[in-house]
């Protein structure tokens, strides 16, 4: 098992190295002048030339690549062309907000999805099943950015129940002490028992969290349903039925447990998707996370920032894959 993990890790590293190299090449191929961007609008030719030297853009391709990889090995992703701040520092600052959102939406997605899937499977081919299936397919078909705008209009503009965006309201941000342990506000405020902050943060995360949860809900529900239907045909379930166990117990404790393997794989897939979805959703909800960061970076072609986020998401993807592999490997049904 350990060897399996090490092997997968090394393969992951290989893939990462590939991603890094490809990213680097792409960025160099793209016609753009980082130096001109570095000095900002209205710069003079002399200023651009000076920046070119400062950024090492006059070095040969391979020297630049070498420097890039060497810096990367030390955790240095270079400086953002827009803000002139180290990309690493900025990523660190924006990461917790994104993680909080991703975790919450995955959490919502898995629970609602499992529930829907189970209900569907129990009432296969009844109208409840049709409804659940329709709903779960609909959730993966909705353009998230569109539903985000609509929900904002309904819940903020019309009903005024929930805030429009951001993580905290201005008053709370200015006049309350904000706990900062992990950077994930819900978690931090809960363990420091700071209910004002917790409540405020919860209200703010509900809308974006729900919008991002839509996709995982549908994905998990569909997966759970089909996995359950397969399992419910197995002999041991039939045996359990013949013992007179109630349908509910059979479903929740026998069948569901055994469908968790495929579901876990889907969940890791969903997390990956959600992570990419933040690129669209965060800017709509003014959520100060990675997605918002890259959205601005894209608009201004801030390549170090784009590369930083790319490498970050590649790392996450590799780890998610590793996790999925390990879950599958740990699943006694799969391991033979």
């Amino acid at each position, binding site marked *: 098992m350990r060897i399996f993990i090490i092997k997968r890790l090394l393969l992951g590293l290989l893939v990462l190295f590939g991603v890094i190299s490809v990213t680097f090449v792409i960025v160099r191929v793209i016609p753009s002048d980082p130096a001109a961007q570095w000095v*900002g609008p*209205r*710069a003079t030719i002399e200023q651009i030339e000076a920046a070119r030297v400062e950024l090492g853009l006059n070095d040969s391709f391979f020297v630049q690549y070498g420097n890039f990889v060497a810096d990367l090995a030390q955790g240095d992703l270079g400086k953002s062309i827009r803000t002139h701040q180290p990309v690493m520092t900025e990523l660190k600052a924006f990461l917790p907000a994104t993680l909080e959102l991703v975790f919450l939406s995955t959490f919502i997605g898995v629970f609602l999805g499992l529930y829907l899937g189970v209900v569907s499977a129990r009432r296969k081919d009844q109208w409840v099943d049709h409804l659940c299936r329709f709903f779960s397919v609909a959730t993966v078909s909705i353009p998230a950015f569109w539903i985000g705008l609509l929900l904002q209009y309904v819940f903020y503009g019309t009903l005024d129940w929930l805030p*429009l965006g951001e993580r905290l309201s201005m*008053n709370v941000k*200015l006049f309350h002490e904000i706990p900062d342990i992990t950077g994930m506000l819900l978690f931090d405020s809960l363990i420091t028992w700071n209910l*004002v902050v917790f409540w405020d943060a919860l209200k703010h995360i509900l809308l974006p969290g729900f919008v991002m949860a839509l996709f995982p809900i549908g994905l998990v529900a569909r997966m759970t349903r089909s996995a359950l239907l397969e399992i419910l045909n197995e002999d041991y379930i039939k045996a359990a039925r013949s013992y007179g166990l109630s349908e509910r117990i059979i479903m929740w404790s026998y069948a569901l447990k055994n469908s968790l393997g495929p579901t876990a794989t889907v969940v890791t897939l969903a997390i990956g998707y959600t992570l990419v979805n933040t690129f669209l959703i965060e800017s709509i909800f*003014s959520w*100060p996370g990675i997605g918002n960061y890259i959205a*601005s970076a894209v608009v201004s072609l801030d390549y170090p920032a784009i590369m930083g986020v790319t490498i970050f998401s590649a790392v996450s993807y590799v780890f998610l894959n590793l996790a999925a592999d390990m879950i599958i490997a740990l699943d006694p049904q799969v391991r033979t």
Partner: protein
Amino acid sequence: MREKMLSNVKGISSLFTILAIAGLLVCFSVAAATAAEPKVALYIQDTEPILDWDPSVESGGGMLVLNNVYETLLRYDATQKKIIPLLATSYTQSNYGMTWTFKIRKGVRFHDGSKLDAKAVKFSIERTMKLGKGMSYIWAPVTKITVVNKYTVKFDLEWPAPLDLIATSNYAAFIMSPKAVKSHNQDWLSQGNAVGTGPYVLQKSTMGEEVILRAFDDYWNGWGEKRYDFAVVKKIVESSSRRQMIEKGDASATVYLPAEDLDQMKSNPNVIVNVGPSLENTSIMFNTQRAPLDNKLVRQAFAYAFPYKKVVKYAAGGYAIKARGALPAQLWGHSKSLFQYSQDLEKAKQLLKQANYSQNSRKLLFTYVSSMEADKKMAEMYKSDLAKIGVEVELRGMPWESMWELSKSRKVEDRQDIFAMLWWPDYCDPYSWLYNMFHSQKEILYNLAYWSDPKFDKLIDDANYEMMFKKKKSLALYHEAQEMLLDESPSIFVYDKKNTLVTHKSFKGFKDNPAYPNVVFFHETYPE
């Protein structure tokens, strides 16, 4: 098994009870907090509040924030067209505009407690010049800065330049505390620190997201009875979000709302739509180096094909005035008697025929900044009108950076044919405007019509020289230069934008100053 599930249900319901109680507690505590709450002004805009906190470097979107934290020697009131004293109480020029002497205001303190004096001014300007970043080039004429006495500073210039205007620049002219800057490393300011003399102190800055400013109690100009204790500047990308927030009173001021929203908001008693002139104008640059637009007749035809009225009315939503010449109406050098094109498709067709323009030549590439809705609409309208005279155009919305990069491609064939350009002044001076856009350049920077005409160059060079001495002659020369541009038509001058800043009714005291576009001087404002 069933028991276990029941206990789960119990657990869930008790969790709900706890949550409900917690919610109540929160409501109480929030209610208690609102009683003695300090006042907060929230300004929301569509881009980052600031990119680089170093006032010598920043030239992006940080004008608003920096002007509240730092101050310049002088400020330009573009509506009155006059210079008002700020950190300098008075100034004199001599030696044909080659020597400038500023009297520095006494009793001004920086945020770190140190006092403003002539040395601080010398230090700040020299630092900006030495770093050579951002808009530091505005100081290019300055050869020497001398501290005459504690509150007098003298600038020696290499060539005559309007140093008073330069000192009002919205970037690169800020005065900072030498004590604070010297006691830290060079990156300290960039990392999000600020020590100026302005009415607000930097409290917290989240890069790219928001800036929180706190009122500076020791501000030299004092405070009125009512004031904003905090000023927050935030990025909210979606215009619909910004509108909803301002209409609900969750925000105090915002900018760049679409014209349709502005029209609707005018009838909303809770918000005030402040419409004022600006120094920004929109123009369209033709690729004069490449067929078919290397032909003056074709360019003129294109200028006649442009739907000026429709663009002003629908693309800019009426929040603009049709341009007359290259310079906006608010800028010195503008002339009311210049020729003005208007749409005439018949004439355009005739000119094309005269130029032997072949109907089925290649599609022309029209680039515009993708985030600018007005430019997009303008492009679509122009495309549909050009189609009427038999010209096919391909539109391409791009980020400014890529669009600019494309326009600077080595090969002329790779460049765009038509380029939508928004321009605003470094400081309120016609020369830098015309120089940047139309003066011959060895390397392309902003002359994106690739226009090069020694006669034109000489005209504006002379006009600039005469400006310090014979303003009338200078004005005439600028007029002539612009007439020349209109005739040659390397570019279409479309409209002067109007500034539209929307404020909530509780946000009082805002005065628009086009020299500092979309800047709110929070010191002037107060809550009601």
